[in-house]
């Protein structure tokens, strides 16, 4: 079976500056792939390229469809939910309005109501704060909101950009546990960018190592974890 997401020779540019130089990558349906790499390696750009948020070249297929020429909002409508770098919260809207926007493209009222319950069950804090302006939430709560907003799309694929960024270790642990159960219960495929390589490799089944815009290594999470160079550079022992 073809993978859920498949990129071949993916290049991306900021203006005329190339940032990705032809990356091959795949995420299986219901699988979790991790993108590792130092700052500036092109991880965030890779997620943006998938969603057509930057100029890109190369072949990308999602659920059997070519994504070339599609605008961001059309790719989202195919079932790709992106939790962006910086969380992308609508800070002047309430928590509940943020979640309603997540389901903006859906028409199934009962399904949406069910998903509200589901994300509130994952993150009870959000239910308590549902009438509160999202900008007043703590960093961890905003990350929960960003993930929940993405889930409200009922996505097939979740793109996560540094979900642990700036959060307390305990909160991070919670969030990663919930990501794992979301993946198991709803078979949502995930592509996760993460500075914390240990965390990412624990969650993922596959991993890619990016260096200056190229995938220099790829394989199962276990194989990558076992690699000496990765261990020294990214796992730090």
């Amino acid at each position: 079976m073809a993978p859920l997401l498949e990129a071949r020779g993916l290049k991306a540019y900021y203006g005329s500056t190339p940032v990705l130089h032809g990356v091959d990558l795949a995420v299986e349906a219901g699988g979790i792939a991790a993108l590792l790499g130092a700052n500036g390696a092109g991880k965030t750009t890779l997620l943006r390229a998938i969603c057509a948020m930057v100029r890109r070249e190369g072949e990308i297929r999602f659920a059997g469809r070519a994504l070339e020429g599609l605008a961001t909002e059309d790719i989202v409508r195919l079932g790709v939910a992106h939790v962006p770098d910086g969380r992308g919260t609508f800070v002047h809207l309430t928590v509940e309005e943020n979640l309603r926007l997540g389901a903006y493209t859906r028409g199934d009222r009962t399904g949406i109501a069910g998903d509200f319950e589901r994300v509130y069950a994952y993150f009870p804090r959000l239910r308590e704060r549902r009438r509160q302006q999202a900008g007043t939430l703590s960093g961890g709560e905003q990350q929960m909101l960003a993930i929940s907003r993405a889930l409200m799309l009922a996505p097939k694929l979740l793109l996560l950009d540094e979900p642990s960024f700036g959060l307390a270790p305990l909160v991070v642990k919670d969030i990663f546990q919930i990501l794992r159960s979301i993946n198991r219960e709803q078979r949502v495929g995930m592509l996760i960018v993460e500075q914390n390589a240990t965390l990412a490799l624990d969650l993922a089944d596959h991993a890619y190592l990016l260096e200056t815009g190229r995938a220099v290594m790829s394989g199962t999470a276990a194989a990558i974890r076992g690699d000496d160079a990765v261990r020294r550079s990214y796992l730090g022992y």
Partner: protein
Amino acid sequence: MTALLHQIFSGVANGGIYASVALALVLIYQATHLVNFAQGEMAMFATYIAWALVQAGLPYWPAFLLTLVIAFAGGVAIERVILRPFDKAPVLAAVCVFIGLLSIFNSLAGFIFTYTIKTFPSPFAERAWYGTRFLSPHETGEIAITLALLLLVYAFFRFTPLGLAMRAAAQNPQSSRLVGIRVGWMLALGWGLAAAAGAVAGMMAAPIVYLEPNMMGGILLYGFAGALLGGIDNPWGAVLGGFIVGVLENLAGGYIVGAELKLTAALVIIVGVLVVRPSGLFGHLIATRV
């Protein structure tokens, strides 16, 4: 005392018209951070359309509603066709487009309808139970129409999914795309709503100032002063600002500078707000981290 009350009440009535213009300006400003200088001329042109419809034999209210629909469609079309190509252009390019639109609508109205001053009907009777000692029936009716318009706009933004999406698109276009909102279309809808709100202002003003291609010049300035005074990023503040400007204008005209220099009151307010409190009475102060 009666004279003073009279000035205040008719100021509120004028303020209703400025409030509608202010609302139209804010609807576009929120999404684009640009002030549409052509707003007044668009409203004037819509009023001519209403006039033409009434001349063609349509009763007032159907003509009123049809004009709103036409103005809305026109606003959407202007955004899609004329402003879209300037999407990523510098601010000055957009300003030039606005000024171009202003002169196009002004000339087009003169060309089609001539520059002869025309009377425009009021839907409200000369004498009616809702006329009071201080407010003519038209003024009472016009205030009621303004408030109804505001209520409708409020309900639309507050309670409908489309209204929510428009608020989201204005605040955070990037995140909006990531939840599947077609941001460009939200902008066009904002233009449509602004054009319709402006049309209401035009149709309510025309019975008072008479219909001619330059009728909205002063009104736009007062509306702009109102929007700035209330806070140009806050629709409710802008509307309240419009009413306040209406009252101040009348009082200044009646007691301070005289009717001929009234318009300077608007300029004084604009300069005063920009100097003392640029965010307006109810606006958000935008603090940028650098």
